[in-house]
């Protein structure tokens, strides 16, 4: 990992998407123990996983982890905290005027 350069690595992963009434959730788990650090990006390959309503879809896929550069990691550590507002129920919306 360089100061300004990004590294790429592949990781097998399991994706679980639940579109059920009692649980709406979606998670990615890396099966080789890969750890994600601040500023890293993850892309799960393959077609979009669409769980029809009422179903849970679990699929093994491959993901690419794009490791952040040292500078980016530092920057994310310093600024990431300010994105907390998303957790508030009233905060999220792309549209400022409705």
């Amino acid at each position, binding site marked *: 990992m360089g100061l300004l350069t990004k590294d790429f690595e592949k990781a097998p992963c399991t*994706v679980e*998407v*639940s*579109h*059920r*009434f*009692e*649980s*709406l*959730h*979606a*998670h*990615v*788990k890396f099966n080789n123990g890969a*750890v*994600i*650090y*601040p*500023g*890293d*990006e*993850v*892309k*799960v*390959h*393959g*077609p*979009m*996983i*669409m*769980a*029809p*309503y*009422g*179903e*849970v879809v679990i699929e093994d896929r491959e993901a690419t982890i*794009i490791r952040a550069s040292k500078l980016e990691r530092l920057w*994310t*550590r310093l600024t*990431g*905290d300010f*994105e*907390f*507002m*998303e*957790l*508030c*129920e*009233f*905060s*999220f*919306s792309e*549209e*400022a*005027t*409705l």
Partner: protein
Amino acid sequence: MNVHSADALTAEEALATQEANQEKFDSEAATQVAMQDTLLTPRFYTTDFDELDAIDVTPVREDWDKLIAQMQSDPNRGHFKKNENWDHVDWDGMEPQLKKEFLDFLISSCTAEFSGCVLYKEMKRRGSNADITQLFQLMARDEARHAGFINDALREAGVAVNLGFLTQKKKYTYFRPKFIYYATYLSEKIGYARYITIFRHLEAHPEHRFHPIFKWFEEWCNDEFSHGEAFALLMKTDPKLTSGINVLWIKFFLTAVYSTMYVRDHQRPAFHKALGVDPDWYAHEVFVKTSKLSEQIFPITLDIDHPRWQRGLVRLQKANADLARAKTETGISATLTRLTSQVRAAAAFVSLFTIPAKTHRVPATTRLEPAY
């Protein structure tokens, strides 16, 4: 088929119920084609997991075990399902602006629950401290359940939530553990205050209840309340978290959360009008309740009766509205408006943040019960 998957005790049981209901879903799938698609785009988080694992709940063990036992007993299992109280909703007859704002309310609520679920699940999976992972697992369960319930209301309105975001490139952001505590504690407690204020208002004025989902707010907000309690106990384990320089951080989070709520709520005038709620009154009610609750752990509360408080909120809201308008326009004057309204918003926030806070003595015992 009377069995509902919300009654299921285990994931396997839930799945079996789902299979039994498959036929129904298949026919629903056919109507989905015409549905409006909303892609959920939650953020993904990482934190300092070693720090999170180092938490020792021994100082609050008694309260902690009681709270966890209560969450495990899952009093709200089975609550989040439609029953005879779920009245018919006339979406087609709904006034278009109200419909737009109400859908935005549901989608943002769903996203927030979903994001909470993603965050808590991540903490659960990466952590190794048994107390902490157990808590996050229980909270992830509740958030996913709430998200599912809102999703169902959205489906009725013809809005399909798309969970396909996982295959898009997504960046992991970073939260310091202590900021997770401050932010999630506040978002859970203010969420409780918001839901219960609307619920009590509609109890007194049922003619304004234009959608049945509001009837579920009481039990719903009790989940939010318990989650907040858990974070209060977590903060209680380490006095440093609520003293010294961290008091300034607490003030920052309080100011940011309160003012964001004020700005956002004022963007939904038709929604509040239909509820028969004045957004200024509502904001003040919610701030009063949240401040009272947060005295359990924070050594300060914001002085929301200070003359600069309301003035600052109005200035911030106006600056944001001007900024939003300027963003849709092009040209030099729009660029200038964008710039000046950003400066005005920042100045308004600084004015709010610098209002002297009220200090008080934090009680020795932290735990509270929902009482509003």
